[in-house]
């Protein structure tokens, strides 16, 4: 690995991201969708709290809940899912486009290791996703300004989102290495991300041991506990392994391309 080459590729990739419309459209859609859900959650919360003032039964029930439970946790879950919807649109071009236009022929004959190429591209996409996640910080900031939520779950929730985004990108760059058609790449990413998402739902359908195992493999099961403020090392290890696996597969797929 050569840090300079990684950063050269990262820079070029970032410039190319921001010189196309796609990134702006993705960021705007992401903010509109997450903003809409945030507004809904806050509106529901305030209506229920308002009603609870005149209804002692409801108030009692409601005291068990708080702003963390009713707004922040669902918000992280939703942002996570919207993130999974958006990342394939960002990752699809990373390698597929170079193959389509033929620029990969020059890129792979430059004196650069494949690892540097993959890492540079991966980090460029990660930077875009981090920007998107950072922009949503406005929501909890508003909550802190107007309410009294616990701060720790917010911080750990964000750690979870970053890991989730990083994992989704690694899968996306892998599907981008498989084809020269960006639509095929994005469709494959969607399909695989949703597979890893729905694994979490099959937990109840199978025996306890297997269920737990499938639950562990699910990609967004792990941000659940983080949005409660619990950081378990197994969750972090899960995401790191996920990322390492798909980056490795991407490298192999690039190599296989050369072999043919």
């Amino acid at each position, binding site marked *: 690995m050569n840090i300079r080459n990684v950063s050269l590729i990262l820079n070029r990739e970032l410039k190319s991201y921001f*010189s196309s419309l796609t990134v702006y459209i993705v960021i705007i859609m992401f903010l509109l969708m997450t903003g809409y859900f945030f507004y809904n959650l806050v509106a529901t919360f305030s209506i229920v709290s308002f009603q609870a003032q005149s209804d002692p039964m409801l108030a009692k029930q409601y005291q068990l809940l708080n702003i963390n439970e009713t707004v922040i946790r669902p918000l992280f879950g939703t942002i996570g899912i919207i993130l999974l919807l958006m990342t394939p649109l960002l990752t699809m071009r990373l390698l597929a486009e170079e193959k389509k*236009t033929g620029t990969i*022929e020059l890129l792979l004959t430059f004196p650069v290791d494949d690892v540097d190429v993959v890492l540079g591209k991966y980090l460029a996409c990660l930077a875009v996703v981090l920007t998107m996640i950072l922009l949503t910080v406005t929501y909890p900031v508003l909550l802190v300004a107007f309410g009294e939520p616990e701060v720790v779950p917010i911080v750990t929730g964000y750690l979870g989102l970053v890991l989730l985004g990083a994992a989704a990108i690694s899968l996306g760059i892998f599907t981008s290495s498989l084809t020269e058609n960006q639509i095929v790449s994005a469709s494959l990413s969607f399909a695989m991300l949703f597979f890893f998402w729905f694994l979490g739902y099959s937990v109840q359908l199978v025996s306890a041991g297997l269920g737990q195992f499938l639950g562990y493999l699910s990609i967004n099961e792990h941000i659940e506990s983080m949005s409660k403020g619990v950081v378990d090392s197994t969750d972090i290890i899960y995401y790191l392994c996920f990322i390492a696996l798909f980056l490795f597969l991407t490298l192999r797929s690039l190599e296989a391309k*050369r*072999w043919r």
Partner: protein
Amino acid sequence: MIEVENLTKEYGEFRAVDNISFTVEKGEILGFLGPNGAGKTTVMRILTCFFPPTKGKVMVAGYNCFEDSLNVRKRIGYLPQRVPLYEDMKVDDYLRFVAAIKGTPAKEVKRKAAKVMDDCGLSDVSHKLISTISGGYRQRVGIAQALVNDPEVLILDEPTVGLDPKQIKEIRTLIKELAGRHTVILSTHILPEVSILCGRVIIINQGKVVAEDRPENLRSESAQRMLLRINGNAPLIEQELSRVGGIKGVEREPASGDTHGFVVVFDDEKRGRQGIQAMIEKNKFELVEMRLLEVSLEDIFIKLVTKEEA
């Protein structure tokens, strides 16, 4: 500088390159000639480590393309046939990126990019997006990126395609200047280009080497043709021409007014030429034009390929 031994490349079942061997000395310019689908691009892609051969050994600048590809890639500049460039970059940004990624120290990147833009006549378009420049300028950017780090070995796949005559001349001069310090392999369809630029030619057809020689030798081996334009009685001229010794055949060209055109194919150029001269003097024909025709690639080709099959 470049050693290729028993190189074979198969795409699935299809054998695109079949047991080719050749060497290129330091400072030499080698021309790669062949019809479409001959396997020129395939050989170049192997030399540049884009993909490995199915069989055979390829050494560039003392390193094995397969085992030591990074060391090979450090020493080559490559212009792919399709000239794939990053359309969303500006010319100067692109060349700086390439210079840097090829290992130019950060301090020198700007200077090197500026120099190569100067050499390739790109200064006028340096701030334009690559997607907006004309085809000829794209081609020059492609050549510029191959040259930017002053590589020992240059591999150029059809470098002058799509350029206008003036640019072709400039680029040929540029390539010619590279000889000596750099080792160059270029592929082309154009025979004059080879005779102008290359010290040696390899002609390949269907993945096999069919000839390897200096361009002059190849040319003299193949049939010479001459165009004659003569005022007078056409059938008489034709009849007289066909009697001249050292000539294999005569073809009529379209006439303009009284001037009739003929292409003669020589068997023995010197004897034929003298015979024609004598014939014209004897008959007092009025000679308007007389010139040797460029031997075309097709001619050499047809000759070589038919020789192979015979």
